[in-house]
Protein backbone atom coordinates (compact mmCIF):
# COMPACT_ATOMS: atom_id res chain seq x y z
CA UNK A 1 0.00 0.00 0.00
CA UNK A 2 1.43 3.33 -1.06
CA UNK A 3 0.04 6.28 0.84
CA UNK A 4 0.66 10.01 0.46
CA UNK A 5 -0.22 12.37 3.28
CA UNK A 6 -0.44 16.10 2.57
CA UNK A 7 0.33 18.25 5.59
CA UNK A 8 0.27 21.98 6.22
CA UNK A 9 2.33 24.13 8.52
CA UNK A 10 -0.03 26.42 10.41
CA UNK A 11 0.38 29.10 13.09
CA UNK A 12 -0.80 28.48 16.63
CA UNK A 13 -4.30 29.95 16.80
CA UNK A 14 -3.80 31.16 20.38
CA UNK A 15 -1.73 34.02 18.99
CA UNK A 16 -2.80 37.63 18.57
CA UNK A 17 -2.62 38.14 14.85
CA UNK A 18 -1.39 41.37 13.29
CA UNK A 19 -2.07 42.49 9.75
CA UNK A 20 1.08 43.27 7.73
CA UNK A 21 1.72 46.66 6.19
CA UNK A 22 0.58 45.33 2.76
CA UNK A 23 -2.88 44.83 4.27
CA UNK A 24 -3.35 41.44 2.63
CA UNK A 25 -1.23 39.13 4.75
CA UNK A 26 -0.55 38.47 8.41
CA UNK A 27 2.67 39.35 10.15
CA UNK A 28 4.34 36.03 10.94
CA UNK A 29 6.77 37.52 13.44
CA UNK A 30 6.51 35.87 16.83
CA UNK A 31 4.06 33.20 15.70
CA UNK A 32 4.62 29.58 16.64
CA UNK A 33 4.02 27.06 13.87
CA UNK A 34 3.28 23.36 13.90
CA UNK A 35 1.66 20.67 11.77
CA UNK A 36 -2.08 21.26 11.31
CA UNK A 37 -3.72 18.97 13.86
CA UNK A 38 -6.10 17.13 11.47
CA UNK A 39 -3.10 16.56 9.18
CA UNK A 40 -1.33 14.84 12.07
CA UNK A 41 -4.36 12.54 12.38
CA UNK A 42 -3.98 11.82 8.67
CA UNK A 43 -0.31 10.90 9.19
CA UNK A 44 -1.32 8.67 12.10
CA UNK A 45 -3.98 6.97 9.97
CA UNK A 46 -1.43 6.27 7.23
CA UNK A 47 1.07 4.84 9.69
CA UNK A 48 -1.57 2.59 11.25
CA UNK A 49 -2.62 1.29 7.82
CA UNK A 50 0.98 0.55 6.90
CA UNK A 51 1.64 -1.16 10.24
CA UNK A 52 -1.47 -3.29 9.87
CA UNK A 53 -0.56 -4.29 6.33
CA UNK A 54 3.00 -5.06 7.42
CA UNK A 55 4.34 -3.33 4.34
CA UNK A 56 3.94 -0.23 2.24
CA UNK A 57 5.25 3.28 2.00
CA UNK A 58 4.08 6.53 3.59
CA UNK A 59 5.12 9.67 1.72
CA UNK A 60 4.59 13.07 3.34
CA UNK A 61 4.11 16.15 1.19
CA UNK A 62 4.01 19.79 2.20
CA UNK A 63 3.84 22.97 0.13
CA UNK A 64 5.31 26.29 1.20
CA UNK A 65 8.49 28.11 2.16
CA UNK A 66 11.60 26.23 3.33
CA UNK A 67 10.27 26.18 6.92
CA UNK A 68 7.65 23.57 5.94
CA UNK A 69 10.51 21.07 5.83
CA UNK A 70 10.33 21.12 9.65
CA UNK A 71 6.71 20.03 9.40
CA UNK A 72 7.68 17.25 7.01
CA UNK A 73 10.45 16.17 9.42
CA UNK A 74 7.92 15.98 12.21
CA UNK A 75 5.81 13.57 10.17
CA UNK A 76 8.95 11.61 9.28
CA UNK A 77 9.81 11.40 12.98
CA UNK A 78 6.35 9.98 13.64
CA UNK A 79 7.31 7.21 11.20
CA UNK A 80 6.63 8.28 7.62
CA UNK A 81 9.20 7.03 5.10
CA UNK A 82 10.09 10.00 2.96
CA UNK A 83 9.16 13.58 2.28
CA UNK A 84 8.37 15.84 -0.67
CA UNK A 85 8.64 19.60 -0.30
CA UNK A 86 6.87 21.64 -2.95
CA UNK A 87 8.66 24.95 -2.65
CA UNK A 88 6.77 28.24 -2.83
CA UNK A 89 7.50 31.68 -1.34
CA UNK A 90 4.42 31.42 0.79
CA UNK A 91 1.43 29.17 1.12
CA UNK A 92 -1.23 30.70 -1.13
CA UNK A 93 -4.74 31.37 0.18
CA UNK A 94 -6.23 29.86 -2.98
CA UNK A 95 -6.83 26.18 -2.26
CA UNK A 96 -7.27 25.43 -5.94
CA UNK A 97 -3.68 26.48 -6.68
CA UNK A 98 -2.42 24.30 -3.84
CA UNK A 99 -4.47 21.36 -5.09
CA UNK A 100 -3.19 21.82 -8.63
CA UNK A 101 0.43 21.70 -7.45
CA UNK A 102 -0.20 18.63 -5.28
CA UNK A 103 -2.06 16.80 -8.05
CA UNK A 104 0.74 17.57 -10.53
CA UNK A 105 3.24 16.04 -8.11
CA UNK A 106 1.25 12.93 -7.13
CA UNK A 107 -0.13 12.13 -10.59
CA UNK A 108 1.12 8.82 -11.86
CA UNK A 109 2.77 8.07 -8.50
CA UNK A 110 0.74 4.91 -7.98
CA UNK A 111 -0.74 6.02 -4.65
CA UNK A 112 -3.51 3.82 -3.28
CA UNK A 113 -4.53 6.49 -0.82
CA UNK A 114 -3.93 10.21 -0.53
CA UNK A 115 -4.80 11.57 2.89
CA UNK A 116 -5.47 15.12 4.09
CA UNK A 117 -6.73 16.72 7.27
CA UNK A 118 -10.29 17.91 6.75
CA UNK A 119 -9.38 21.58 7.10
CA UNK A 120 -6.71 23.95 8.32
CA UNK A 121 -7.73 26.72 10.72
CA UNK A 122 -5.72 29.48 9.02
CA UNK A 123 -7.29 29.70 5.56
CA UNK A 124 -10.36 27.75 6.79
CA UNK A 125 -11.51 26.60 3.38
CA UNK A 126 -11.24 22.80 3.57
CA UNK A 127 -11.23 22.28 -0.19
CA UNK A 128 -7.79 21.01 -1.19
CA UNK A 129 -8.36 17.27 -0.72
CA UNK A 130 -11.51 17.02 -2.79
CA UNK A 131 -10.05 19.15 -5.59
CA UNK A 132 -6.99 16.88 -5.74
CA UNK A 133 -9.35 13.90 -5.97
CA UNK A 134 -11.15 15.45 -8.92
CA UNK A 135 -7.94 16.41 -10.70
CA UNK A 136 -6.58 12.87 -10.31
CA UNK A 137 -9.98 11.21 -10.85
CA UNK A 138 -9.75 9.36 -7.51
CA UNK A 139 -12.73 8.35 -5.39
CA UNK A 140 -13.10 10.77 -2.50
CA UNK A 141 -14.55 10.67 1.00
CA UNK A 142 -14.28 13.79 3.14
CA UNK A 143 -14.31 14.31 6.91
CA UNK A 144 -14.04 10.69 8.01
CA UNK A 145 -14.05 9.65 11.65
CA UNK A 146 -13.71 5.88 11.14
CA UNK A 147 -11.77 3.96 8.51
CA UNK A 148 -11.27 0.36 7.46
CA UNK A 149 -9.32 -0.79 4.40
CA UNK A 150 -9.51 -4.42 3.27
CA UNK A 151 -9.29 -6.27 -0.03
CA UNK A 152 -8.72 -3.15 -2.08
CA UNK A 153 -11.86 -1.51 -0.72
CA UNK A 154 -12.55 0.91 2.07
CA UNK A 155 -15.33 1.80 4.43
CA UNK A 156 -15.62 4.95 6.46
CA UNK A 157 -17.91 6.93 8.71
CA UNK A 158 -18.70 10.61 8.20
CA UNK A 159 -20.27 12.93 10.74
CA UNK A 160 -23.07 15.02 9.29
CA UNK A 161 -25.21 17.54 11.11
CA UNK A 162 -27.14 15.36 13.52
CA UNK A 163 -26.49 12.17 11.57
CA UNK A 164 -23.77 9.76 10.58
CA UNK A 165 -23.14 8.39 7.15
CA UNK A 166 -21.45 5.04 6.56
CA UNK A 167 -19.89 4.73 3.12
CA UNK A 168 -18.00 2.17 1.06
CA UNK A 169 -15.51 3.23 -1.54
CA UNK A 170 -13.06 1.83 -4.05
CA UNK A 171 -9.30 2.47 -4.18
CA UNK A 172 -7.44 4.52 -5.17
CA UNK A 173 -9.03 7.19 -3.03
CA UNK A 174 -8.52 10.58 -1.46
CA UNK A 175 -9.68 10.79 2.16
CA UNK A 176 -9.86 13.81 4.46
CA UNK A 177 -9.65 13.15 8.17
CA UNK A 178 -11.93 14.55 10.87
CA UNK A 179 -11.77 14.50 14.64
CA UNK A 180 -12.31 11.12 16.27
CA UNK A 181 -10.44 8.92 13.80
CA UNK A 182 -7.39 8.56 16.04
CA UNK A 183 -5.01 10.35 18.33
CA UNK A 184 -1.73 11.25 16.67
CA UNK A 185 1.36 9.66 18.22
CA UNK A 186 4.22 11.77 19.51
CA UNK A 187 7.53 11.33 17.74
CA UNK A 188 9.85 9.13 19.81
CA UNK A 189 13.47 10.11 20.37
CA UNK A 190 14.44 7.23 18.11
CA UNK A 191 11.97 8.46 15.51
CA UNK A 192 13.42 11.95 15.64
CA UNK A 193 16.94 10.60 15.12
CA UNK A 194 15.83 8.34 12.25
CA UNK A 195 13.94 11.19 10.57
CA UNK A 196 17.16 13.13 10.08
CA UNK A 197 18.38 10.49 7.65
CA UNK A 198 15.14 9.98 5.73
CA UNK A 199 14.98 11.33 2.16
CA UNK A 200 13.33 14.71 1.65
CA UNK A 201 13.05 15.98 -1.91
CA UNK A 202 12.52 19.66 -2.58
CA UNK A 203 11.18 20.96 -5.90
CA UNK A 204 9.27 24.03 -7.08
CA UNK A 205 5.47 23.93 -6.65
CA UNK A 206 3.52 24.18 -9.92
CA UNK A 207 0.98 26.62 -8.53
CA UNK A 208 -0.23 28.37 -11.67
CA UNK A 209 -2.36 31.52 -11.55
CA UNK A 210 -4.49 31.90 -8.42
CA UNK A 211 -8.24 32.15 -8.98
CA UNK A 212 -8.91 33.55 -5.55
CA UNK A 213 -6.85 36.37 -4.04
CA UNK A 214 -7.08 38.25 -0.78
CA UNK A 215 -7.93 41.91 -1.31
CA UNK A 216 -7.80 43.01 2.30
CA UNK A 217 -7.75 41.74 5.86
CA UNK A 218 -9.52 43.25 8.83
CA UNK A 219 -10.10 42.49 12.46
CA UNK A 220 -13.69 41.43 13.17
CA UNK A 221 -15.93 44.12 14.62
CA UNK A 222 -15.78 43.99 18.41
CA UNK A 223 -18.94 42.78 20.11
CA UNK A 224 -20.53 45.48 22.20
CA UNK A 225 -19.51 44.92 25.81
CA UNK A 226 -21.83 42.61 27.70
CA UNK A 227 -22.95 42.75 31.28
CA UNK A 228 -23.08 40.50 34.29
CA UNK A 229 -26.75 40.28 35.09
CA UNK A 230 -26.20 38.95 38.59
CA UNK A 231 -25.26 35.95 40.69
CA UNK A 232 -26.90 32.56 40.99
CA UNK A 233 -30.52 31.63 40.43
CA UNK A 234 -31.60 35.02 41.79
CA UNK A 235 -30.40 36.60 38.52
CA UNK A 236 -32.63 34.42 36.34
CA UNK A 237 -35.75 36.66 36.31
CA UNK A 238 -33.68 39.64 35.16
CA UNK A 239 -31.98 37.52 32.47
CA UNK A 240 -35.34 36.35 31.17
CA UNK A 241 -36.59 39.94 31.11
CA UNK A 242 -33.55 41.00 29.06
CA UNK A 243 -33.94 38.09 26.67
CA UNK A 244 -37.57 39.06 26.13
CA UNK A 245 -37.38 42.84 26.00
CA UNK A 246 -33.85 43.74 24.96
CA UNK A 247 -32.53 40.84 22.87
CA UNK A 248 -36.03 39.76 21.81
CA UNK A 249 -35.09 36.13 21.53
CA UNK A 250 -37.65 34.68 23.91
Amino acid at each position, binding site marked *: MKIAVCVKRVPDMDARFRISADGTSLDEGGLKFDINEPDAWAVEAALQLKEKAGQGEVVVLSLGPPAVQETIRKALSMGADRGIHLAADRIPFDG*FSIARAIAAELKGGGYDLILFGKMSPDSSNGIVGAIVAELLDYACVTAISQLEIADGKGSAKRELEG*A*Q*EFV*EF*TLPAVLTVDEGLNTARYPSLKGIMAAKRKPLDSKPAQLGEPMVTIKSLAMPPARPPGK*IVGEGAAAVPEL*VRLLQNE*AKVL
Partner: protein
Amino acid sequence: MANILAFAEQRSGELRKVALENVTAARALADATGGEVHALLVGAPGIAQKAEQLGKHGADVVLVCEHDALGDYNAEAVAALAAERIKSGGYRVAVFSTSAQGRDLLPRVAAKLGVGVVTDVTEARIEGDAVIVKHPINIGKVIATASIAGTPAVIGLRPGNTTLVENPKAAKVEQVQPVGDPSAARVKVKEMKKGASAKLDIGEAPVVIAGGRGLKSAEGFKLAEDLADAFGNAAVGATRAVCDDGWRPHSEQIGQTGRVVSPDLYIAAGISGAIQHLAGMRTSRTIVAINKDKEAPIFKIADYGIVGDVAEVLPALTAAVREARKSH
Protein backbone atom coordinates in the same frame (compact mmCIF):
# COMPACT_ATOMS: atom_id res chain seq x y z
CA MET B 1 -28.00 40.67 -15.79
CA ALA B 2 -26.68 37.65 -14.05
CA ASN B 3 -28.50 34.45 -13.20
CA ILE B 4 -27.56 32.73 -9.99
CA LEU B 5 -27.78 29.02 -9.18
CA ALA B 6 -28.70 27.99 -5.64
CA PHE B 7 -28.16 24.44 -4.47
CA ALA B 8 -31.19 23.09 -2.60
CA GLU B 9 -29.71 20.72 -0.08
CA GLN B 10 -32.00 17.94 1.16
CA ARG B 11 -31.65 14.97 3.46
CA SER B 12 -34.03 12.02 3.46
CA GLY B 13 -36.43 13.92 1.23
CA GLU B 14 -36.66 17.02 3.43
CA LEU B 15 -35.13 20.37 2.49
CA ARG B 16 -32.41 21.50 4.87
CA LYS B 17 -32.74 25.01 6.22
CA VAL B 18 -29.52 25.86 4.36
CA ALA B 19 -31.37 25.22 1.08
CA LEU B 20 -33.60 28.19 1.86
CA GLU B 21 -30.60 30.23 2.99
CA ASN B 22 -28.91 29.53 -0.34
CA VAL B 23 -32.00 30.61 -2.27
CA THR B 24 -32.42 33.74 -0.12
CA ALA B 25 -28.79 34.77 -0.68
CA ALA B 26 -28.96 33.93 -4.38
CA ARG B 27 -32.07 36.11 -4.66
CA ALA B 28 -30.20 39.08 -3.23
CA LEU B 29 -27.32 38.55 -5.69
CA ALA B 30 -29.69 38.17 -8.63
CA ASP B 31 -31.78 41.22 -7.70
CA ALA B 32 -28.65 43.39 -7.61
CA THR B 33 -28.19 42.72 -11.32
CA GLY B 34 -31.74 41.97 -12.45
CA GLY B 35 -31.13 38.26 -12.95
CA GLU B 36 -33.01 35.08 -12.09
CA VAL B 37 -32.51 32.49 -9.38
CA HIS B 38 -32.51 28.86 -10.41
CA ALA B 39 -32.49 26.28 -7.64
CA LEU B 40 -31.05 22.82 -8.19
CA LEU B 41 -32.96 20.14 -6.31
CA VAL B 42 -31.63 16.59 -6.43
CA GLY B 43 -33.22 13.60 -4.74
CA ALA B 44 -35.30 10.45 -4.90
CA PRO B 45 -38.50 10.47 -7.01
CA GLY B 46 -41.01 12.79 -5.38
CA ILE B 47 -38.51 15.45 -4.37
CA ALA B 48 -40.10 17.84 -6.90
CA GLN B 49 -42.78 18.52 -4.27
CA LYS B 50 -40.27 20.66 -2.44
CA ALA B 51 -39.99 23.13 -5.32
CA GLU B 52 -42.80 25.25 -3.92
CA GLN B 53 -40.90 25.96 -0.71
CA LEU B 54 -37.92 27.11 -2.78
CA GLY B 55 -40.19 29.39 -4.79
CA LYS B 56 -41.41 31.02 -1.61
CA HIS B 57 -37.89 32.20 -0.89
CA GLY B 58 -37.20 33.49 -4.36
CA ALA B 59 -36.52 30.70 -6.89
CA ASP B 60 -37.78 31.60 -10.38
CA VAL B 61 -36.95 28.16 -11.71
CA VAL B 62 -36.36 24.86 -9.91
CA LEU B 63 -34.24 22.35 -11.77
CA VAL B 64 -35.31 18.98 -10.43
CA CYS B 65 -33.35 15.79 -10.86
CA GLU B 66 -35.08 12.69 -9.51
CA HIS B 67 -33.47 9.27 -9.41
CA ASP B 68 -33.59 6.22 -7.12
CA ALA B 69 -29.83 6.41 -6.57
CA LEU B 70 -30.02 10.08 -5.52
CA GLY B 71 -32.06 9.79 -2.31
CA ASP B 72 -29.00 9.70 -0.07
CA TYR B 73 -26.24 12.16 -0.81
CA ASN B 74 -24.37 10.77 -3.82
CA ALA B 75 -21.33 13.02 -4.04
CA GLU B 76 -20.05 11.99 -7.45
CA ALA B 77 -23.41 12.07 -9.20
CA VAL B 78 -24.50 15.35 -7.62
CA ALA B 79 -21.15 17.03 -8.34
CA ALA B 80 -21.26 15.90 -11.98
CA LEU B 81 -24.83 17.10 -12.38
CA ALA B 82 -24.25 20.43 -10.63
CA ALA B 83 -21.13 21.17 -12.68
CA GLU B 84 -22.89 20.32 -15.92
CA ARG B 85 -25.91 22.49 -15.03
CA ILE B 86 -23.80 25.42 -13.90
CA LYS B 87 -21.79 25.31 -17.09
CA SER B 88 -24.70 24.92 -19.50
CA GLY B 89 -26.85 27.48 -17.65
CA GLY B 90 -24.19 30.18 -17.84
CA TYR B 91 -24.63 31.20 -14.20
CA ARG B 92 -22.55 33.99 -12.74
CA VAL B 93 -22.40 32.52 -9.21
CA ALA B 94 -23.29 29.12 -7.79
CA VAL B 95 -24.37 29.33 -4.16
CA PHE B 96 -23.94 26.33 -1.87
CA SER B 97 -23.79 26.02 1.91
CA THR B 98 -20.75 25.19 3.97
CA SER B 99 -22.73 22.41 5.64
CA ALA B 100 -21.25 18.91 5.90
CA GLN B 101 -22.73 18.11 2.49
CA GLY B 102 -21.83 21.45 0.94
CA ARG B 103 -18.25 21.26 2.17
CA ASP B 104 -17.94 17.95 0.39
CA LEU B 105 -19.69 19.04 -2.76
CA LEU B 106 -18.29 22.54 -3.36
CA PRO B 107 -14.66 21.73 -4.11
CA ARG B 108 -15.68 18.88 -6.41
CA VAL B 109 -17.93 21.16 -8.44
CA ALA B 110 -15.30 23.91 -8.61
CA ALA B 111 -12.66 21.40 -9.69
CA LYS B 112 -14.87 20.05 -12.48
CA LEU B 113 -15.50 23.59 -13.69
CA GLY B 114 -11.92 24.72 -13.13
CA VAL B 115 -13.09 27.82 -11.27
CA GLY B 116 -12.38 29.58 -8.00
CA VAL B 117 -14.14 28.55 -4.79
CA VAL B 118 -14.41 29.99 -1.30
CA THR B 119 -16.25 28.32 1.59
CA ASP B 120 -17.64 29.76 4.82
CA VAL B 121 -18.67 32.99 3.13
CA THR B 122 -20.39 35.60 5.33
CA GLU B 123 -21.02 38.24 2.62
CA ALA B 124 -20.92 38.16 -1.17
CA ARG B 125 -21.39 40.65 -3.97
CA ILE B 126 -20.70 40.88 -7.66
CA GLU B 127 -18.34 43.68 -8.57
CA GLY B 128 -17.38 44.01 -12.23
CA ASP B 129 -15.51 40.91 -13.30
CA ALA B 130 -15.05 39.63 -9.79
CA VAL B 131 -17.14 38.17 -7.03
CA ILE B 132 -16.07 39.70 -3.74
CA VAL B 133 -16.61 37.64 -0.59
CA LYS B 134 -15.94 37.92 3.11
CA HIS B 135 -14.52 34.85 4.73
CA PRO B 136 -13.29 34.54 8.33
CA ILE B 137 -9.76 33.14 8.64
CA ASN B 138 -7.64 32.08 11.61
CA ILE B 139 -10.66 30.80 13.53
CA GLY B 140 -12.54 34.05 13.01
CA LYS B 141 -9.85 36.28 14.52
CA VAL B 142 -9.34 37.93 11.13
CA ILE B 143 -11.83 38.59 8.32
CA ALA B 144 -10.53 38.25 4.78
CA THR B 145 -12.09 40.01 1.83
CA ALA B 146 -11.29 37.87 -1.18
CA SER B 147 -11.83 38.26 -4.87
CA ILE B 148 -12.84 35.30 -7.02
CA ALA B 149 -11.81 35.85 -10.62
CA GLY B 150 -13.53 34.20 -13.57
CA THR B 151 -17.03 32.87 -14.15
CA PRO B 152 -18.80 31.18 -12.53
CA ALA B 153 -17.69 31.73 -8.97
CA VAL B 154 -18.54 28.91 -6.59
CA ILE B 155 -19.25 29.95 -3.02
CA GLY B 156 -20.29 28.18 0.18
CA LEU B 157 -22.24 30.30 2.64
CA ARG B 158 -21.66 30.02 6.36
CA PRO B 159 -24.71 28.09 7.63
CA GLY B 160 -27.08 30.15 9.76
CA ASN B 161 -25.57 33.42 8.63
CA THR B 162 -28.31 34.31 6.15
CA THR B 163 -31.61 35.51 7.57
CA LEU B 164 -34.40 33.86 5.59
CA VAL B 165 -36.52 36.22 3.55
CA GLU B 166 -39.73 35.26 1.78
CA ASN B 167 -39.93 36.62 -1.72
CA PRO B 168 -42.40 34.48 -3.66
CA LYS B 169 -41.49 33.62 -7.26
CA ALA B 170 -42.87 31.22 -9.82
CA ALA B 171 -40.64 28.23 -9.06
CA LYS B 172 -41.22 26.82 -12.51
CA VAL B 173 -40.16 23.16 -12.35
CA GLU B 174 -37.84 21.88 -15.05
CA GLN B 175 -36.88 18.21 -14.95
CA VAL B 176 -33.22 17.53 -15.62
CA GLN B 177 -31.43 14.24 -16.17
CA PRO B 178 -28.49 12.93 -14.17
CA VAL B 179 -25.08 12.99 -15.83
CA GLY B 180 -23.95 9.42 -16.34
CA ASP B 181 -25.30 6.60 -14.18
CA PRO B 182 -25.77 7.70 -10.55
CA SER B 183 -25.71 4.06 -9.38
CA ALA B 184 -22.18 3.63 -10.75
CA ALA B 185 -20.54 5.92 -8.16
CA ARG B 186 -17.30 4.76 -6.56
CA VAL B 187 -18.45 5.94 -3.14
CA LYS B 188 -21.73 4.52 -1.90
CA VAL B 189 -23.69 5.38 1.22
CA LYS B 190 -24.46 2.08 2.97
CA GLU B 191 -26.26 3.49 5.93
CA MET B 192 -27.41 6.78 7.44
CA LYS B 193 -27.88 6.87 11.17
CA LYS B 194 -29.88 9.80 12.33
CA GLY B 195 -29.49 11.23 15.77
CA ALA B 196 -32.58 11.23 17.98
CA SER B 197 -34.99 12.04 15.18
CA ALA B 198 -37.21 14.71 16.68
CA LYS B 199 -34.23 16.80 17.74
CA LEU B 200 -33.07 19.89 15.95
CA ASP B 201 -29.54 20.12 14.69
CA ILE B 202 -27.18 22.70 16.25
CA GLY B 203 -26.61 24.24 12.83
CA GLU B 204 -30.32 24.85 12.25
CA ALA B 205 -31.71 25.55 15.70
CA PRO B 206 -32.46 29.20 16.50
CA VAL B 207 -31.33 28.52 20.07
CA VAL B 208 -28.26 26.49 21.08
CA ILE B 209 -27.69 25.36 24.67
CA ALA B 210 -24.01 24.47 24.86
CA GLY B 211 -22.48 22.70 27.81
CA GLY B 212 -18.91 22.35 28.97
CA ARG B 213 -17.05 20.53 31.68
CA GLY B 214 -18.95 22.57 34.22
CA LEU B 215 -21.89 20.20 33.66
CA LYS B 216 -19.70 17.59 35.36
CA SER B 217 -20.80 14.39 33.55
CA ALA B 218 -22.80 12.92 30.69
CA GLU B 219 -25.77 12.81 33.10
CA GLY B 220 -25.19 16.47 33.92
CA PHE B 221 -26.21 17.32 30.35
CA LYS B 222 -29.78 16.54 31.38
CA LEU B 223 -29.83 20.14 32.68
CA ALA B 224 -28.96 21.42 29.19
CA GLU B 225 -31.48 19.11 27.53
CA ASP B 226 -34.22 20.27 29.88
CA LEU B 227 -33.51 23.88 29.04
CA ALA B 228 -33.50 23.06 25.30
CA ASP B 229 -36.82 21.35 25.84
CA ALA B 230 -38.24 24.42 27.57
CA PHE B 231 -37.30 26.60 24.60
CA GLY B 232 -38.80 24.09 22.19
CA ASN B 233 -36.65 25.36 19.31
CA ALA B 234 -33.24 24.60 20.81
CA ALA B 235 -30.46 22.08 20.23
CA VAL B 236 -27.71 20.96 22.61
CA GLY B 237 -24.05 21.55 21.74
CA ALA B 238 -20.82 20.87 23.59
CA THR B 239 -17.16 21.76 23.97
CA ARG B 240 -14.36 19.60 22.75
CA ALA B 241 -13.36 18.71 26.30
CA VAL B 242 -16.79 17.18 26.78
CA CYS B 243 -16.82 15.34 23.43
CA ASP B 244 -13.33 13.98 24.02
CA ASP B 245 -14.55 12.58 27.34
CA GLY B 246 -17.38 10.89 25.49
CA TRP B 247 -20.16 12.77 27.32
CA ARG B 248 -21.52 13.95 23.98
CA PRO B 249 -20.94 12.85 20.35
CA HIS B 250 -18.38 14.77 18.28
CA SER B 251 -21.18 15.83 15.94
CA GLU B 252 -22.28 18.24 18.68
CA GLN B 253 -18.84 19.79 19.11
CA ILE B 254 -18.72 23.51 18.53
CA GLY B 255 -15.48 25.30 17.74
CA GLN B 256 -12.34 25.32 15.68
CA THR B 257 -12.32 21.57 15.10
CA GLY B 258 -16.07 21.19 15.39
CA ARG B 259 -19.04 23.01 13.96
CA VAL B 260 -19.48 26.72 13.44
CA VAL B 261 -22.91 27.94 14.51
CA SER B 262 -24.59 31.35 14.57
CA PRO B 263 -27.96 30.96 16.28
CA ASP B 264 -30.14 33.80 17.51
CA LEU B 265 -29.37 32.78 21.07
CA TYR B 266 -26.37 30.85 22.38
CA ILE B 267 -26.34 29.82 26.02
CA ALA B 268 -22.92 28.66 27.24
CA ALA B 269 -23.24 26.69 30.48
CA GLY B 270 -20.11 25.67 32.37
CA ILE B 271 -17.89 26.62 29.43
CA SER B 272 -14.63 28.46 30.06
CA GLY B 273 -14.58 30.16 26.65
CA ALA B 274 -11.28 28.95 25.18
CA ILE B 275 -10.41 30.70 21.94
CA GLN B 276 -10.93 27.45 20.00
CA HIS B 277 -14.47 27.24 21.32
CA LEU B 278 -15.23 30.90 20.56
CA ALA B 279 -14.21 30.19 16.95
CA GLY B 280 -17.41 28.20 16.57
CA MET B 281 -19.94 30.53 18.19
CA ARG B 282 -18.69 34.10 18.26
CA THR B 283 -21.06 35.22 15.49
CA SER B 284 -24.14 34.12 17.46
CA ARG B 285 -26.57 37.02 17.73
CA THR B 286 -27.06 36.96 21.49
CA ILE B 287 -24.70 35.12 23.84
CA VAL B 288 -25.50 34.18 27.44
CA ALA B 289 -22.84 32.72 29.74
CA ILE B 290 -23.36 30.90 33.00
CA ASN B 291 -20.16 30.14 34.85
CA LYS B 292 -19.21 29.97 38.50
CA ASP B 293 -15.89 31.69 37.83
CA LYS B 294 -16.46 35.40 37.25
CA GLU B 295 -13.04 35.63 35.55
CA ALA B 296 -13.92 32.98 32.90
CA PRO B 297 -13.09 34.33 29.39
CA ILE B 298 -16.56 33.41 28.13
CA PHE B 299 -17.91 36.50 29.94
CA LYS B 300 -15.83 38.72 27.66
CA ILE B 301 -17.84 37.67 24.64
CA ALA B 302 -21.22 37.23 26.36
CA ASP B 303 -23.97 39.83 26.12
CA TYR B 304 -25.45 38.61 29.40
CA GLY B 305 -23.67 36.71 32.13
CA ILE B 306 -24.73 35.00 35.31
CA VAL B 307 -22.03 34.12 37.80
CA GLY B 308 -23.18 30.95 39.45
CA ASP B 309 -23.40 27.19 39.66
CA VAL B 310 -25.06 25.64 36.59
CA ALA B 311 -26.66 23.04 38.83
CA GLU B 312 -28.63 25.86 40.44
CA VAL B 313 -29.01 28.38 37.59
CA LEU B 314 -30.03 26.04 34.75
CA PRO B 315 -33.08 24.52 36.49
CA ALA B 316 -34.23 28.00 37.51
CA LEU B 317 -33.77 29.25 33.96
CA THR B 318 -35.59 26.21 32.57
CA ALA B 319 -38.56 26.91 34.81
CA ALA B 320 -38.55 30.61 33.95
CA VAL B 321 -38.36 29.95 30.19
CA ARG B 322 -41.25 27.46 30.45
CA GLU B 323 -43.26 30.09 32.26
CA ALA B 324 -42.37 32.84 29.76
CA ARG B 325 -43.32 30.69 26.78
CA LYS B 326 -46.61 29.70 28.38
CA SER B 327 -47.71 33.32 28.67
CA HIS B 328 -47.10 33.96 24.97
